[in-house]
């Protein structure tokens, strides 16, 4: 009995030590929200894919490091970065002052606007959503969720916010008719329009935002590597190819 306990202990210890030593290589781990097509998602064969994933792959090859994309929950992605579970975030993250306090951002690589998405046959307008007694879906932990909450308080808007794990889930509920509209970045909205009976209503007054890669504040070297990589990528023909493949602008 005692020997069994001892052996199990030893086994558990070995497994843990092993899982740590695989860490040491010069591989950077990119945390992605795989619920964010077309910037980051999991493709048919189960591999991480998307505009940001392929861009990070290119940069890794150009700058000479290995990259592993790790899909995770958006809610926990910055804690994961700070706890060193991942090394950077290239996954459609808007550069905001709040986030900038905790992490460092690379140069911006994409400008994004926030839009309302409603059902195909909906007669709603941006104004009627903002001022009417409507329900509005947002992804938890996003900049648009934060902005809508603050502005509603300030301006006395009467909509009710419903929080979702991802933008596609909010779209699903728009289609179900459970909420009147959903607010999200224009790129995933366009993705939704291609796949579901919804339409984009347009922007609702939020300033356009810029996407950047996030790194830990002390990781100056990685920040510089990513910045160099991004600059080279955006001058390379591959950048246009990426834009055509993933259509993040439509």
């Amino acid at each position, binding site marked *: 009995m005692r020997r069994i306990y001892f052996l199990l202990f030893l086994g558990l210890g070995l497994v843990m030590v092993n899982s740590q030593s695989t860490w040491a290589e010069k591989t950077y781990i990119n945390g992605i929200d795989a619920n964010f097509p077309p910037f980051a998602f999991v493709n048919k064969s*189960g591999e991480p894919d998307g505009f940001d994933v392929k861009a990070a792959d290119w940069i890794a090859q150009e700058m000479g490091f290995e990259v592993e994309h790790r899909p995770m929950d958006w809610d926990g992605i910055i804690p994961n970065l700070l706890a060193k579970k991942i090394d950077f975030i290239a996954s459609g993250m808007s550069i905001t002052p709040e986030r900038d306090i905790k992490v460092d951002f690379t140069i911006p690589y994409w400008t994004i606007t926030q839009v309302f998405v409603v059902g195909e046959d909906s007669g709603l307008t941006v104004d009627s959503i903002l001022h009417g007694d409507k329900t509005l879906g947002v992804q938890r932990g996003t900049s648009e969720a934060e902005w809508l909450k603050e502005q509603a308080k300030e301006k006395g808007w009467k909509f009710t916010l419903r929080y979702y794990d991802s933008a596609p889930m909010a779209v699903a509920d728009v289609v179900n008719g459970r909420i009147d509209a959903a607010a999200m970045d224009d790129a995933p909205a366009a993705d939704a329009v291609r796949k579901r009976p919804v339409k984009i209503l347009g922007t609702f007054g939020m300033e356009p935002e810029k996407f950047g890669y996030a790194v830990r504040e002390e990781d100056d070297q990685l920040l510089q590597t990513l910045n160099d990589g991004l600059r080279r990528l955006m001058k390379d023909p591959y950048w246009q190819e990426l834009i055509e493949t993933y259509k993040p602008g439509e």
Partner: protein
Amino acid sequence: MYESLLVITDALPYILEGSLVTVGIVLGAMGIGLFFGVPVAVIQVYAPKALRLVAGAYVWFFRGIPVLVLLFLFYFGLFSLLGFNISAFFAAVIVLGLRGVAYQSQIFRGSILSLPQGQIKAARALGMSDLKAIQSIILPQALRLSIPGWSNEYSIVLKDSAIAFVLGTSEIMSRTHFVASRTYEHLPLYLTAGAVFFALTTMGVRALRILEKRVSLPGYSAHS
């Protein structure tokens, strides 16, 4: 309709691969729970008061906090503070395991208490030490009696393991979530995930049922 089926057949291998991760988390967590749950139960019944209090405090702590909070507390807090950089998978195994110790110890404690305690006195009269009596008389009976409760615990941990996706493990639920985000076929995909969990629960509970019959002693059962 046809499209939904196509999405499911496309996604099934990917989701099933996730069931390996789920099974890994569950086996690890149940293993830790069994390994430490038995001693904790024995301590709670037989040990001196000071030790009983410590074991009681442990159980109290892990039963009183939602598993999501425990996961965040350990993964982002404690493990990082102590300098362990363990993967999300092992963090899930350890946290669900530590919580399992608390729950499982109560299953074993119940079984131990259901035994006539005169058996210990009888063992003493035969010259056995208490520890020896617990090991060779009490536990063999108590563990057999615990299998039904343990199988219940298995089905709970199996489904609770889905919460590990907040840490970034790619088990059944997170994989389903990813495919749903790409294809917008939420309902058929979550039904599929439900079916996978259902199959895993059924298989595990069946296996434990068989074990229960295998190890049952002739003429000895809880209701004889």
